């Protein structure tokens, strides 16, 4: 038996606000007291409880994860959640600065608050929370996994997601959908999905040859006397944002009309509640909710947003449950006469020092990690400054990766993808092989080195910028902005494609990028088949072992306007 900690009295934190945030210096609130009971506290409502986890990205253990300080919205999404960060976020949702919620949800005071509140997440903590909800709500509970579950760690990469599949199986999800799951390739996905024991949904996936459905579109679940239709929407741009050659027979897309058709079909079949388990990304789901009729709930994913309140679009509730195993979402619904009469929502942050780990899950996690434990724990270097990834334009972990690319591959310019996953390393900590692979463990890791003209570079950067800042979310394709080492630039996010990027310069010399000159560029995660080069984790590991100590100053290479 695990002895249950009634509560953890967390330590006093008085560190000043991190430099650069500007304006008022806040002080972290002292003597915050958190208990498991408080974290789980929820006045039950209605006859259905939806429990949602998403974008766990292979993270089985508690971790640090700094939420973005820059997350800009364009068009209708400008200034709307989730495109609010820092103090604006705290004000919008009435979260006290320095509180545990402020730490879980924003980047404000992150370093100081991380010392106070410790690591978050761990699937054994999630298991405790989910078991507690089930114990309380019995047959009213539906557990749904929004995908990006099987990828994002070394053990996931080495086992092709089996570590996560085995651990998640203990939670008995009712359905899941996916995105990075597909980067294990057609055969592995088919095999894993067949053995899953619950439906892997993707109403928007068709076979490329006959344009016929390739995955189950929906599943119907009876809970609390209500007939619940769960529709699944995989990431619409998987074959664009990730290697299409790995899944040549599957075609994706937003397929709004197919979503509507599935909703209509479910309603006709007598569904009292229609839920879209989505990996569209929040802005796409917001638009979808405004155009598709009859959706009660969209459980959003992909963009890793953690929102403490449901966002209502028409009659549809949008839930954003964060990423990296930091949160479990609980949505209680009063479903009667084929509609939602009332709801209550809580985004439960999994403070790892407060929530008792579930013993069964903890044992399973230890078992799946055991073959890799020694290499994962290997210290490669040490950081004096915070290493994080999330944010629209840069993160210090990506700056580290770009530095490694420039030096280890003797390049002038480095390109690193704007992935949203990847864990945070605190100042003074060792950088382990696990930290490096948490930011790099993908099935197409080759580091290429090639000549690119200045004109081609601009074309690539413009292309990626449009994937992020196209005013129509249906035309937004992927992650955050590509990270660039060795080169500075200015971006006006409100301009159309081709006109956003200007003032591209080599940082070393300050010289403007010449459209006709060829530059030596190193990068990784190319979606092209047959890309040659060493895996990125080797390149970063070798750099770290040479450097030993990392100290990264704030990145000022990107000048952003049009905000």
């Amino acid at each position, binding site marked *: 038996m695990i002895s249950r900690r009634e509560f953890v009295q967390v330590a006093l934190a008085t560190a000043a606000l991190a430099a650069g945030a500007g304006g008022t210096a806040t002080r972290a609130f002292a003597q915050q007291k958190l208990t498991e009971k408080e974290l789980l506290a929820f006045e039950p409502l209605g006859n259905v409880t939806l429990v949602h986890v998403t974008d766990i990205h292979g993270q089985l253990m508690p971790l640090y994860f700094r939420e973005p300080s820059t997350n800009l919205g364009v068009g209708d999404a400008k200034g709307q959640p989730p495109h609010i960060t820092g103090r604006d976020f705290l004000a919008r949702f009435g979260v006290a600065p320095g509180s545990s919620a402020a730490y879980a949800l924003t980047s404000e005071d992150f370093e100081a608050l991380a010392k106070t509140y410790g690591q978050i997440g761990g699937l054994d903590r999630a298991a405790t929370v989910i078991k507690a909800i089930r114990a309380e709500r019995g047959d009213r509970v539906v557990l749904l996994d929004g995908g990006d579950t099987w990828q994002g760690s070394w053990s996931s990469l080495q086992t092709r997601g089996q570590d996560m599949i085995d651990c998640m199986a203990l939670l008995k999800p009712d359905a899941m959908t996916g*995105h*990075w799951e597909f980067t294990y390739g057609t055969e592995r996905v088919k095999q894993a999905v067949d053995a899953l024991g619950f439906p892997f949904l993707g109403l928007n996936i068709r076979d490329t040859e006959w*344009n016929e459905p390739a995955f189950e579109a929906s599943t119907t679940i009876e809970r609390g006397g209500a007939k619940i239709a769960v529709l699944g929407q995989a990431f619409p*741009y998987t*074959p*664009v*944002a*990730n290697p*299409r050659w790995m899944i040549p027979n599957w*075609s*994706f*897309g*937003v397929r709004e*009309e197919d979503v509507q058709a599935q909703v209509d079909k479910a309603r006709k079949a007598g569904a009292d509640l229609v839920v879209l388990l989505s990996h569209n990304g929040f802005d796409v789901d917001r638009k979808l909710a405004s155009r598709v009729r009859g959706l009660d709930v969209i459980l959003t994913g992909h963009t890793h947003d953690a929102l403490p309140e449901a966002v209502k679009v028409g009659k549809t509730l949008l839930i954003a449950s964060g990423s990296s195993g930091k949160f479990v979402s609980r949505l209680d619904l009063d479903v009667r006469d084929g509609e939602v009469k009332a709801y209550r929502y809580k985004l439960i942050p999994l403070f790892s020092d407060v929530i008792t780990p579930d013993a069964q899950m903890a044992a399973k996690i230890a078992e799946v990690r055991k073959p890799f434990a020694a290499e994962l724990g290997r210290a490669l270097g040490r950081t004096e400054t915070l290493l994080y990834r999330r944010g629209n334009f840069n993160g210090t972990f990506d700056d580290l990766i770009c530095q490694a690319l420039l030096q280890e591959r003797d390049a002038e310019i480095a390109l690193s*993808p*704007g*992935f*949203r*996953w990847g864990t945070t390393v605190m100042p003074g900590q060792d950088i382990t092989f696990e930290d490096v692979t948490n930011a790099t463990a993908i099935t197409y890791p080759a580091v290429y080195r090639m000549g690119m003209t200045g004109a081609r570079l601009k*074309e*690539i950067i413009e*292309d*990626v910028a*449009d*994937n992020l800042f*196209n005013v*129509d979310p*249906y*035309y937004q*394709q*992927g*992650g955050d902005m*590509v990270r660039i080492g060795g080169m500075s630039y200015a971006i006006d996010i409100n301009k159309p*494609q081709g006109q956003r990027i200007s003032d591209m310069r080599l940082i070393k010399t300050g010289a403007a990028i010449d459209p006709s000159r060829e530059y030596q560029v190193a990068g990784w*995660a*190319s*979606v092209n088949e047959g890309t040659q080069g060493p895996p990125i984790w080797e390149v970063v590991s070798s750099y770290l072992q040479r450097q030993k100590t990392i100290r990264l100053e704030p990145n000022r290479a990107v000048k952003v306007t049009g905000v």
Partner: protein
Amino acid sequence: MGAINRRQAFLLGGGLVALTLMPMTADAEPSNDAAELIKKFTGGKEAASGKISLDLPEIAENGNTVPLSLTVDSPMTADNYVKEVLFVADGNPNGGVATLMFSPLSGKAEASIRIRLAQTQNVIAVAKMSDGSLFTERKTVKVTIGGCGG
């Protein structure tokens, strides 16, 4: 990317009677002839919006073979049917994509083809009905370099 001077359209069935490939010209012009082709097809008459449903991806997975499905709302009877649908793409070296011919015997005015798109651009469909009325619909398809998503 090399200049694209061939278009491929694949007939995938669905009530289609005839598929006519547009005549090809050798040289890619910077601004293409899409507008002229529409003008020629409509005889300069204004086409109304509506009736046409165009299923195209917002972002192409592969610009070399983009699936396009067309449905025109029509009873397809002897005195009320879709005669012809013109497809043009305004950002390809040549604007012409395909012309689909229908008759009352088609039963439905539906078709699926695959088209090639050299870059991000609009695909425009214009339908000519048996009474001479014209309808049009357009959709922007983004063709990206790809990568960096996640």
